[in-house]
């Protein structure tokens, strides 16, 4: 009896050996970045131009022989374009290592929803994929082969993430974050902008603000840095202050940002930001020796600069009518009158006031006084 069962099991299990349809790694090409545009052809304006940057597995990853394969295809939808691209490849196109999705400028000015839906619906595309806007179009960004790139697509991936460079001008946006911002009440999508600069450079220093569907405004590099300061902890950055009589650079060692929404009962609300930071002096342009009082004066000047820049940026964001930081969600989450809070916020938003309290301390003068 027992032997019979064992034999039966062995026979059954052998059936599953071939059933897996597993393709070997040398028969796959891994998509590392996708770029999606609207085609330039005016007749095809409502179609999609999909660019896939693929890496082919090779023996030695340390050599720079890793050429990438780029395929571009135009079709009525993204899946269609990918099916067409598949017939151009001899290998199985594998999306499970795709780390960057670039939305072309032509697309973000139109509508991003179908792509957001597609990328989060597909099971093999990660939710921790980076999303960004490509300028002048996604194709050029994805195609770009920078000098420093050792592995296909790696320049883009390292640039957008925080493992490689840690620029204060880059805001990392993951696919799941984009997806939640598209649906959330009181929180709007954002994406960093990647610009392809010829001959071989990728510049990421701006931030695109979206309403739920398309891009509305672009923040300049300076504004992007302040935005990052306002929305993250421990920003790695230096700042320059050019006040009367003083002119210096300092390097931020630690920073913190908090905000709370005050009021709201009488139709007026104030958003109070509290920034605090600890810094070390990096350059003193005036050249005089930095004594204690001078250092405290510098701290004050730096704080005032933050206050000015911060309030300016917040007003700019308010003027666009968008909510990239999630003030609306904060308001809803702190109010228990769930039936009316959205109406209330809609009324409050245009008249919001902003106060930035900057508590900046330059603690060290560096190696010299």
């Amino acid at each position: 009896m027992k032997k019979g069962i064992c034999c039966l099991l062995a026979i059954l299990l052998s059936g599953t050996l071939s059933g897996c349809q597993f393709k070997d790694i040398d028969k796959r090409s891994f998509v590392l970045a996708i770029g999606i545009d609207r085609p330039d052809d005016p007749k095809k304006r409502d179609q999609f131009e999909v660019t896939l940057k693929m890496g082919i597995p090779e023996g030695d990853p340390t050599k720079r022989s890793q050429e990438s394969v780029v395929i571009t295809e135009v079709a009525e939808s993204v899946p269609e374009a990918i099916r067409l691209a598949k017939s151009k490849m001899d290998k199985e196109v594998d999306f499970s290592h795709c780390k960057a999705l670039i939305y072309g400028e032509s697309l973000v000015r139109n509508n991003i929803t179908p792509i957001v839906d597609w990328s989060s619906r597909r099971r093999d595309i990660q939710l921790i994929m980076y999303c960004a806007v490509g300028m002048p179009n996604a194709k050029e960004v994805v195609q770009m082969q920078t000098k420093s790139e050792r592995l296909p697509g790696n320049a883009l991936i390292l640039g957008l993430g925080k493992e490689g460079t840690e620029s204060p001008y880059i805001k990392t946006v993951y696919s799941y974050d984009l997806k939640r911002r598209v649906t959330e009440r009181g929180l709007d999508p954002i994406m960093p902008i990647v610009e392809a600069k010829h001959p071989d450079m990728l510049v990421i220093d701006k931030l695109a603000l979206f309403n739920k569907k398309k891009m509305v405004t672009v923040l300049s590099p300076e504004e992007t840095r302040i935005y990052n300061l306002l929305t993250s902890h421990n920003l790695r950055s230096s700042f320059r202050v050019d006040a009367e009589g003083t002119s210096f650079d300092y390097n931020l060692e630690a920073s913190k940002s908090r905000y709370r929404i005050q009021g709201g009962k009488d139709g007026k609300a104030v958003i109070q930001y509290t920034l605090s930071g600890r810094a070390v002096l990096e350059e003193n342009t005036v050249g005089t020796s930095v004594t204690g009082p001078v250092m405290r004066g510098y701290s004050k000047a730096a704080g005032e600069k933050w206050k000015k820049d911060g309030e300016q940026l917040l007003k700019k964001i308010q003027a666009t009518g968008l909510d990239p930081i999630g003030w609306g969600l904060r308001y809803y989450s702190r109010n228990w009158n769930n039936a009316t809070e959205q109406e209330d916020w809609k009324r409050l938003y245009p008249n919001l006031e902003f106060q930035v309290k900057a508590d900046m301390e330059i603690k060290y003068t560096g190696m010299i006084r």
Partner: protein
Amino acid sequence: MVSSKYIYYLFLMNALINIINFVPRVLVFTRFHGALPSIFLSTFIGTLLFFGFTYTIKGFKGQGLPEIFNATLPRFFSFLLLILYAFFWFMAGIITMLSFVDITLRFISPDISSYAVILGFLLLTSICCRLSSESILYALETLLFLVTPIIVYMLVKAFINPAFNWDAVMQVVTFMWTRPKYVSLAGATFIFSGYFNLAIFNRNFKQIKTRHFWMIPVVGLMILLVTFLVPVGYHGTIGVEEHVYSWFSTADSIRMELFIIERVLFLFYTTYLTLALVSTVLHWHVGLELFKGAFQSKEGKKPGKKMDWWVLVPFSAATIIIMNFLDQVRLGQLGQWFLNIRFLNELLLMGVMFYAKGRSAKKT
């Protein structure tokens, strides 16, 4: 004979496996209409049921549900009830299994045939659930010790991520004062129903001592809140509803930057695969023993070991047939129906247990 800490393992097992058994699904669906009050209410009810069941079964030392029922109830009723509960426990295992087949196809490989996956699961559970109750309890302990640290690690990772949106969580919390719904209540009490497995495992307990009983409501409430609120923190108050397996999507949203693999998803999958299989084995073991218990003679003579396959093979076949009929939506509905009926069933069992206790007290 095992010590009474194993009750807590049984509890923890069910509490951890809730993610697979569609508990987050119903909580997320009702997040604006009573999920949170249901959670608090169910903590209360669940603890009460837990206490009530352990209290009543304490009186029947070394006896499982079949022995208790056969001794105190009319033969016809005890037969009917045992068959009913056997079906019920098998169903619990089937839902965990089917849900995991679906997850495997979705996240690991859509190319593999679902029959191959379910066949593997069925073989494993069928063979393992015939082991002795004691071996299963020991296996449960070992695997929980292996798996719990990984789950805690992933949770810590989830909470310290700056992208975790506490505002979204707070926004859901503001829907506290809504009327609880039966469906979400039935879902949330699932966490506590691990004690239910004592129905068979009581045979192996020396005596049931419930020390540190306060841990049950505290741990249960915490697990429920985490189950419900972490996906909200990652996918937003509105977006969370769009994810079919909200916890797997959440695991996919967490990164391990400096590990061999970057996606937490795969770690999460393997961890929960272990848990799901152990839970299925546990449930099928209880189901099998109850089934055999229904055919037990008054003197306690059990049907032979060979009869196991006459129960397991039909249930395995039924699993495959059910899987054929299901799509993603129907599977979710089936899971919900199971949760709904399970809650009523638990209350019924509670009533029967109290009746049985009364009867046996009168006899002696």
